[in-house]
Structure formats: structure tokens, C-alpha cells
């Protein structure tokens, strides 16, 4: 039995819940069926536990349709974390060799190239230039998306951090943090990546590590320690770091309001809600407008936990809905603090909204402000 008594009871409760949180589940929105729902997933597991019905291939697929966004948890009075329950079963499914074959390319790519995008490892950060600076030393762990898909974020992060006086170092041989593997159940593979990262990070001479990707942030600060892997320096998300330098951040007149999308890994999974908002409010001189669904009630962008790999069209449907929610605020800019979210939201916003990641916004402010940063 992979679940303890307490979780087994939670699954039993959730299996027959009168669908109290279904209305916020993004995969219910994407499929409009009772199957990819929180209670649906719990019912499949409950039936498996009670011996009523084993998981068939379709049931496994339903478990892999979960974004692990934990939005359901926000609405669950008995605090049942379907995301965690699903991830536990995914781990077992991987051990049993019963995971969807659509994950193979992603897993193989990380095994071979240390990134999920099948990109050559040697090109990971070789292009990223860091200026010399005599300030406090800091390691920037770029993560795969900023390294291969959202280069602007990485460049702007380096630029903003340098302006704040940091000596930014990029690890020479950074590997995927393991987040895509962990979230889809490939723990052993993930730990292979993790051990390597811990070794190189611990060998670097710096005061702290900063990340721009909340997926990396969660894995480095929560999953690595859970698996006994300790990083010997503090790890901060760039939103936290920038917030600690609030007064030194540039300000500028932005044309039109901006709204903020909370990425699940940063918000619900790490509790970082206010820091990015304070940064946005500072640099935009108070131009932030909230979406109806914000903070722990924010909707996922649709990219999480393998959904985009396995069901790209449905993932995009979720992203498009999140963009609609942003448009409803009347904002001109949609700011997020996650390269992965940015990538999805930008693809769905087309030219209706300008989508920026937090370092990009701050860099924009820097370029357009006359205030000097120290």
C-alpha cells in the first residue's frame, strides 16, 4: 500500500465528495467531463485501494491529466491535496512501467541532454554573458526554459542582478533541476540530475543562489531536502531577491495597467505571493490590477506536470482561459514570475497583451527610467 491510513481516508472522502472544488479545476475546464477532476482522480484511486476496480490505461491517463496545480486544495475544506496524492501514484506507476509513453521523449531528453527540449547541453548557458562586478557573489541557476526558450528572461535577470551590484555567476555545468521528472513520477531520474546539481552548486563560491523558475525553486528548496540533498547556500527566487531591494529598483511610467499571474509552484506551492506584487507596484508606480482569481485562487497557466507534453491542445485551452481572465482586468501587460508560465501565456495572448516575466519588467523599467540603481 503506497498510501498511509490518513491519506487512504482522505482519498475515500474525496472520491464521494459532491464536487465542491471541481469548478476551479483547470482540467475540468479543458475537458468538460467528470473524468479529469479532483474527485474523479480520487475515485479511481479509491476503487483501486478497495479492490473494486484496478486502474486501466484510461485511468492512468486521467491521473496524468492532472496539472498538480493544487488549485483544488485552496477550495477543499478538509484540505485534501489531490496533486500530492496523484504524484504519489505516478511514482508507483513509473516503477511499474505503466506511465504514458508520451512522456518518453521528455525523459530521454533529460537523461541525454539534461533538458527536456532535446537541445544540446553545451549550448545551455554558453551564450549568457555575465559582467564583472565586485559586489556580493551570487549564483544564477537559470533552469531549462530560460536557458533554451526564454533567453530574454535570463539576460534580463543577469542585467538586473548586476545593476543591483551582484557578481553573477552561472554554473558551468548546470543540469535540469529535475522538476518535470519529479512531477511525473520519475524520481530516480530526477535524483540523478539533482545529485549532480547539488554537487556543482555546493562547489561554487557564492553567498546565495537565485532562480527565475518557480519549478526549480520548489525542487531546490523542497524536493532536494526531502530526498536528503542539501544545498549549502540559501536559495531565493528572484521575486524575493528583488523585493529585498525594493527601494533600489527603478521606477517608470508604464503605458496602461499590468496584471500579475501567480505561477503554481511559486504561489500555492511555495507561498510567495506578495513579493512579486511589491516589485511590480514599485517599478510601475502602482499600476497593478488584480485578476479575479489571484494568489492562492489563481488559475494555473496549463503548462504544469507534463500536461503540455502529453496533451498540448488542452494545455493551450487552459492558457487561453488564463489570458482571457487577464484581459478582463483591462491590463495591457500580463506579468508573471515564471519562464514556463510566460512561455505558455505569451503563446496564447498573441498580440492582445504584452507578456513579461518579472526580470523583463524590471529591466524595462531600468532602461526607461532615469533613476539610477545603486
Amino acid at each position, binding site marked *: 500500500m503506497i498510501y498511509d491510513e490518513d491519506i487512504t*481516508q482522505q482519498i*475515500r*472522502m*474525496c*472520491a*464521494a*465528495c*459532491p*464536487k*465542491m*472544488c*471541481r*469548478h476551479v479545476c483547470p482540467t475540468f475546464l479543458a475537458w*468538460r*467531463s*467528470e*473524468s479529469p*477532476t479532483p474527485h*474523479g482522480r480520487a*475515485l*479511481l484511486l*479509491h*476503487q483501486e485501494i*478497495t*479492490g*473494486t*476496480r484496478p486502474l*486501466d490505461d*484510461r*485511468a492512468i491517463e*486521467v491521473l496524468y491529466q492532472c496539472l498538480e496545480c493544487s488549485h483544488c486544495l485552496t477550495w*477543499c*475544506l*478538509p484540505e485534501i491535496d489531490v496533486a500530492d496524492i496523484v504524484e504519489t501514484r505516478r511514482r508507483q506507476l513509473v516503477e511499474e512501467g505503466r506511465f504514458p509513453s508520451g512522456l518518453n521523449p521528455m525523459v530521454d531528453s533529460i537523461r541525454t541532454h539534461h533538458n527536456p527540449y532535446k537541445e544540446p547541453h553545451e549550448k545551455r548557458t554558453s551564450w549568457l554573458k555575465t559582467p564583472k562586478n565586485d559586489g556580493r557573489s551570487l549564483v544564477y541557476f537559470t533552469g531549462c526554459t530560460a536557458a533554451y526558450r526564454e533567453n530574454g528572461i535570463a539576460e534580463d535577470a543577469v542585467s538586473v542582478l548586476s545593476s543591483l551590484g551582484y557578481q553573477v555567476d552561472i554554473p558551468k555545468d548546470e543540469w535540469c533541476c529535475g522538476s518535470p521528472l519529479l512531477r511525473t513520477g520519475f524520481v530516480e531520474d530526477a535524483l540523478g540530475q539533482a545529485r549532480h546539481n547539488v554537487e556543482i552548486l555546493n562547489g561554487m563560491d557564492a553567498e546565495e543562489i537565485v532562480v527565475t523558475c518557480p519549478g526549480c525553486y520548489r525542487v531546490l528548496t523542497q524536493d532536494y531536502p526531502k530526498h536528503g540533498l542539501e544545498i549549502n547556500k540559501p536559495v531565493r527566487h528572484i521575486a524575493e531577491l528583488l523585493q529585498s531591494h525594493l527601494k533600489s529598483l527603478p521606477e517608470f511610467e508604464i503605458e496602461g495597467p499590468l496584471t500579475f499571474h501567480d505561477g503554481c509552484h511559486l504561489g500555492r506551492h511555495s507561498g510567495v505571493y506578495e513579493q512579486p506584487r511589491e516589485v511590480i507596484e514599485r517599478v510601475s508606480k502602482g499600476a497593478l490590477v488584480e485578476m*479575479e482569481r489571484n494568489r492562492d485562487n489563481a488559475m494555473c497557466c496549463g503548462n504544469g506536470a507534463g500536461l503540455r507534453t502529453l496533451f498540448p491542445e488542452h494545455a493551450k485551452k487552459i492558457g487561453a482561459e488564463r489570458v482571457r481572465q487577464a484581459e*478582463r482586468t483591462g491590463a495591457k501587460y500580463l506579468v508573471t514570475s515564471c519562464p514556463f508560465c510566460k512561455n505558455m501565456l505569451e503563446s496564447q495572448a498573441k498580440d492582445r497583451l504584452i507578456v513579461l516575466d518579472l526580470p523583463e519588467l524590471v529591466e524595462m523599467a531600468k532602461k526607461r527610467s532615469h533613476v539610477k540603481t545603486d
Partner: protein
Amino acid sequence: MNERLLDSKTKTKIAKQLKGIVGVEHITTQETDIVLNAHDAWPLSEAKIRAGEMLPLADIVVFPGSTEEVSEVLKVANKNKVPVTPVGGGAGTCGGTLPIYGGIQLDLKRMDKVINIDHKSMLVSVEAGMVGIDLEEEVNRHGYTLGHTPTSMRASNVGGFLATRSGGSMSSLYGKIEDLTLGLEVVLADGSIVRTKAVPRHSVGPDLRELFIGSEGTLGVITEATLRLFPIPEERRFRSMAFADVHSGLEAIRLIFRAGITPSVVRFYDPEDTAMSMSQHFDVEEGDSMLLLAFDGAPEKVDHEERVSVEICKENGGKDFGDGPSKRWWEHRYDMYYPTKFTTAGFSIGDTIDIVATYDKLENVYHAMKTAMEAHEAFVMSHFSHMYQNGGSIYMIFFTSQPDAETAWATYKKIWDDGVAACLREGGTMSHQHGVGLSRSTYTEDELGSSFQVLKKIKDVLDPNEIMNPGKLGLGVQE
């Protein structure tokens, strides 16, 4: 009940035809999908799920995206005489969506769009599959409310609201769904599409719209509705009063309505329900019953309504609890529906018999039902809610915990049988808003008396092949 009816050849043939109608991605014959789509929120189904039992399954679940697709699906079903169970939000409490004779479950969740908001007439036209909360939030953005606030708002959809004649907690002021609906579009069993015009009142024969409201999928599939809108009230004010007994509280409610006051919320908790729902948070005397009131509207109107209501309550022995209990209930109104360790332990099962009666009978119905239900070792607690000028509803809530499944399900049935019998004997009606579905199907004939034959004849004409949700509402029951 678990026998699915279609042989594999017929099933394959029908599935192929349905695929042609809705597209391959909007139909499923996968057992996992069928299991997950089978049940609504009937407490007996929920208890059976927890106990590891399988529920009756459909052969095919289909998700049409338009009225035309619904029509084509029904034509195929009718031609092949295959049962069709419409599914709304799947949060009904009576087993209405259980496909007890197999066949097709026709799920409307993809039909989830607002068609039009008519600001001048204050109306919204909407597809039947739109979830209640999504619609409410959308009209809120335009400054309106539906005035329909059932606690299933997050899960149920417009079609389900209509099909079960549902009622929100503010039905005293805004009305139930039948009062809130002006026009309907319905697809009949033979696939024909009928529309009733959206007008405030008319004098062109019987109101055919009413025929389908509450028909629970037995007469056709509701695909679209035109609903009323209200400006969001300027103010909602709460007030609470405790009474030493049920009688004096009920008198106060009756007199408030008689004085021409229509609060939006009127909920009156008997001593057991007060102890359960209020005593943890407020200092209520043991044995007291709590009345929760709310008033909606412009401040002057609310001032007047509150003042008169408070006077009447005090004249009838009411002890003022301010806005606390009432406001707290409003803010936590969804909480009691979540599963808890206690309510889901072992073979526990509870349910609500939501009866309705006129004031002259209401108290008798309450006492008679309570006695009948408690005779089966059930814990019974009740609140009077959805009150009107001439009477109102009682939520007779019961809970029982038994050592094994067989005893639990049998006890559950006895409580229902005797509770409903007591209600009917004392002149009450067995449901105010939850509907009949499967849980009350066998009582329908007793409830409706001579008028049941009219319902049956209508059914015979509109659905001669008895394909529409057979076994529900006392109709189309197969021996």
C-alpha cells in the same frame, strides 16, 4: 441494476453513429469515463462509492456541443429505443443521473456559453451546460445577480437547476428557478426542437415552459434558457433571533410575511440543528432555536424591513443576536457539504428530505416526520428555510451509522419511507427543490395522487418509447 443493456454489436453501431454527430473526441465508451460520469451527489451513491460498490453504468457517454447535436443524438437513441440519461452538473441529490438501465448518458457540460445579455429587459440567455457559479460571476461583471443561490452553485448547471426545479437560499425574495425563467429551448425524445418564448407573462393557453421545468430529463433535454436578472442589491443586511421554541419562531416568520415584508433569507433552525450549527460559535441557550434573516435592497428599504421584522420577532419572544449568526451562515454556507471524517466514517449515511407545506400544516409535518424518522435510530435535525407568504420548506436532515452496508442501506430506506409517508399523511409535499430522481421515484404516485395520470399521459405522448431517463420521477419504470 448493474446489467448494461446494449449488446456489443448495437453499442458499436450506435457509438459509430454518435461519433459522426459529435466528433470522436466527444464520446466515450471507456469504462473509466463511464464509471466517473455515472453518479451525481445522491448520498446513497456516495455512501456506496465509499463502501467500494459499483454503481449502475451507461454504455456510452456523449458530450454534444450544440442543440442540433443533442437533437441528432436523440434521433439515434429514439430509433434504436436506447435509454438516454441527461447529465447536468452531476450534483443532484436524488440519483437522477444514474443510468439504471444503461444506454446513453447525454452530458451537457460542453454547452457552457452565455448567448446574450439583454440589459434593457434584464435577461440572460444561456446554454444549459453552463455551471451556476460561472454564470453568476459573468452576470456580476455586468452589475447583475441571478438571485439564484443554491449551495450547489459551484457544481450544478443551468439545465440541472431547471430540470429539478431547484431553489436557492434566497428564494423567499427572488423566487425559485421556475420564477426566474422566462423562456426555454428543449429537445424532445424524437429530436424535435421546441422553444417557448421568453415573455414576462402570457395568456396563450397553459404555460408549456412549466411542463419541462422539473421534468428531470424524463420529457426532453433542456438546451437553453432565458433567465431573469436583478441589479446587485445595494445592501444585504443580516439579523438573527433566538426563540425558546419552534412554534414561536414559526409564528414570527408567518407574521413577517403577513406584514408584507419579504426577507431574502429566512432560515429557522430547530433546537438540534441550532446546537449543531450555531452553539459552537454563539452563546445560544440549550433548547433554543435560531432564526437567520437577511434583507436585500436599498438602505431605506432594508431599514424598514429589518425594523418591522425585529419588532415582530421580539413580540414573539425573540432574543436578538445581531448580525452574527446570520452573517456567519452566509459566509460559511458551503462548509456543511464537504466530506468530514465523521460523516464518512464506516457505513455512515445521511440525507435531507426537503419537504414543503402551508403554514397550517407545517408544524404538524415537522413533528410527525421527526418522530417517524427518529424511530429508526436516526439523528434528525432540521431547519425551516425557503419561507413564503403561505408556508415554506423544512430541511429534515438525518444521519445514521450502521455496522455494515446491508443494514445501512436498509435503514436509510426505512427512514425515507417513513419520513415521506409522515409528510404526505400530514398534508406536506415531499420535495421543495431537490426533485424526485431515483430516491423518491416510488413515492411519486402517492404524492401526485390523481394528477399522476396526467403526467403519465404526457409522458406517453412525448416519449412513447420511454427512452428519456427511464425509472426517474416514477416514469418509465421497467419491471
